[in-house]
């Protein structure tokens, strides 16, 4: 049974801890990103360049994917194509089994969340260990991420300490709630896993068609561990992440860290091309995932959605996200970008309330490093919700009535006359403190102004008559 955004948001609004954390966290990131984006004199040109490169990559996506496959293969890697989540899961489980292991280490990847890889691995008897600190916290707590980049943003240090004490064996014994101590415990707990595990699974921030180079951007070094130490590396990437040329990294390695965490550069970027003799895994697999992306590409207005580089800057500036929290979006993609990605991946019937989870304030579009016009796409998707018949019947009826009312002046005058008559029953001190459904949401917290006896039009006509 799927609930809708307003219901889930109501839970978030009542979660005092989460609201405090989110307000503090998003405020901090907003300040940092604003500072480091303002200090680059060519920041606006970089945004334009990022958008232009993504457009070009997607306009010839078939060619770039084929070129990427050729170059990765030439460099000793293997390329697999997964049309949907089930195919991707099947490929990854098969490759892991072939390596003869029953555990894998994972580096933060929204794509593996999207295809629900972990349950599939567990079902196949393979234990996945998330190694990004926040992902590990979320996995240990058996919860879902609430922020693209800071998935455990909804939890505080005491909750995390209690979790580590319960789940980390000797490394959690007597642990304090200081973030440096918690971090040190995670380091000690995972170090042995990094060194003994044969297979690692990663996402990818980009892959370069021209050279076959794949890149991962990270902070903690868990990514480097996964990408370097195991014998087998399996990376899964949405097809939209391909970049035409190696030089395009000049743009994206500047846009991503500054927009994401407000750093001039994140601590580590790893770039690899196939396999490198004597350095790192001896087997590399790249899984290219469609899973609905080609469908998004087919929509001329919404295809910009695929420009997203998962920086999460739109979450951090969104007044709705800050209050409702990430879980309200019921997806690994939250905030404004989630409100356009999820309905397109899962369908409007299931996720049709998400395009309405925005006041269309435009703060997301204003800061997006690749200038995705999220408000426009939200409105576009709302049009599809209505056209495909997923809007409420009552609402559709009311909108039809309103359209007829605005369809000619006589009807509008009549409606205003009827309204003035009707409001007499509800009016108190010149305002309407209560309205019937569907307008009761308004009067939850706001009085509604009463219709004045004379409309502007009446006044104008009387004045002209004089």
């Amino acid at each position, binding site marked *: 049974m799927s609930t809708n955004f307003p219901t889930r948001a109501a839970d978030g609004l009542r979660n005092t801890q989460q609201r405090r954390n989110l307000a503090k*966290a998003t405020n901090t990131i907003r300040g940092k990103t604003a500072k480091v984006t303002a200090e680059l*004199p*060519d920041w606006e*040109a*970089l945004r*334009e*360049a990022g*958008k*232009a490169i993504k*457009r070009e990559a*997607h*306009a*010839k*996506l078939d060619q770039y*994917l*084929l070129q990427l496959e050729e170059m990765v293969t030439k460099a000793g890697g293997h390329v697999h*194509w*997964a*049309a949907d989540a089930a195919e991707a899961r099947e490929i990854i489980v098969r490759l892991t089994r072939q390596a003869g292991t029953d555990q894998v280490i994972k580096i933060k990847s929204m794509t593996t969340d999207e295809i629900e890889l972990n349950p599939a691995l567990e079902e196949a008897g393979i234990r996945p260990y998330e*190694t990004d*600190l*926040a992902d590990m916290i979320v996995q240990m707590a058996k919860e879902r991420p609430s922020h693209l980049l*800071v998935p455990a943003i909804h939890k505080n*240090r005491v909750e995390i300490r209690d979790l580590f004490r319960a789940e980390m064996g000797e490394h959690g014994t007597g642990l304090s709630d200081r*973030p*440096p101590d918690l*971090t040190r415990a995670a380091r000690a707990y995972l170090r042995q896993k990094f*060194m003994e595990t044969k297979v690692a699974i990663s996402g990818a921030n980009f892959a370069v068609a021209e*050279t076959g*180079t794949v890149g991962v951007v990270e*902070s*903690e*070094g*868990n990514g*480097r*561990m996964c990408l*370097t*130490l195991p014998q087998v590396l399996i990376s899964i990437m949405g*097809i939209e992440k391909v970049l035409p040329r*190696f*030089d395009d990294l*000049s*743009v994206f*390695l500047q846009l991503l860290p500054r927009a994401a965490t407000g750093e*001039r*550069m994140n*601590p*580590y*970027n*790893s*770039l*690899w*091309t196939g396999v490198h003799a*004597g*350095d*790192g895994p001896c087997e590399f697999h790249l899984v*290219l995932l469609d899973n609905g992306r*080609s469908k998004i590409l*087919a929509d*001329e207005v919404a295809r910009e959605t695929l420009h997203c580089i998962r920086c999460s800057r739109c979450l951090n500036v969104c007044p709705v996200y800050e209050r409702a929290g990430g879980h309200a979006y019921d997806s690994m993609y939250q905030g404004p970008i989630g409100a356009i990605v999820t309905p397109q991946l899962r369908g409007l019937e299931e996720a049709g309330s998400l395009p309405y989870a925005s006041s269309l304030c435009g703060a997301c579009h204003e800061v997006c490093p690749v200038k995705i016009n999220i408000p426009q796409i939200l409105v576009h998707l709302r049009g599809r919700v209505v056209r495909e018949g997923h809007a409420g019947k009552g609402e559709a009826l009311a909108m039809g009535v309103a359209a007829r009312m605005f369809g000619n002046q006589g009807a509008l005058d009549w409606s205003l006359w009827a309204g003035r008559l009707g409001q007499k029953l509800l009016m108190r001190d010149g305002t309407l403190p209560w309205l019937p459904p569907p307008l009761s949401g308004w009067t939850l917290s706001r009085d509604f102004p009463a219709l004045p006896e004379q409309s502007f039009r009446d006044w104008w006509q009387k004045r002209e008559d004089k």
Partner: protein
Amino acid sequence: MNGRDLILSRVRAAIAGSPPPVTPTPAINRVWEGDREAMVERFLDRLRDYNVGVTRTSGTVAPALAGILAGRGIDRLAVPTDLPAEWRPDGVALVPDDNLPHGALNAIPGALTGAALAIAETGSIVLDGGAAQGRRALTLLPDYHLCVVRAEQLVGLVPEAIAALVPNRPITFCSGPSATADIELDRVVGVHGPRRLDVLFVG
């Protein structure tokens, strides 16, 4: 139809009929505008901003390295097999990483390497497995990384670095020691990668 053909046919159908975009590539800044010393200053400032220990020398390398290591209390280092002879500090045991097992590498307190290049604007050192750098695990498992950057290896901006790099090498950008802000957004320096990074700038 297999996954590959299915995806390609869907993609082709999706983009059919859309004219190729005619967006002129906007001009981003590609080269450092300003003098060389300002570039060096920018680099060292950025490093300090990441809590990187910064030392600059115009003299011989080995004594400067010895001084840094004495300050850190480190007397044993893993090094690439091609470490330049003039980088061998006195009083420090050097263990060449001749494909050491990961466990052995993990037990050594620090690593000493060079770099492929460095970027002033972002305070990044870039490793590519080339001369005096060794494999990626060398600068990953030990808890401390000491990196020698020569003046001529420094570029100003990210695009200059991308232009200079050879794509088919294993490339790692390091900008400060590993870090996380995952717990209440408190920044903690030192997670899985080296908890300390020192840079000796020569020039």
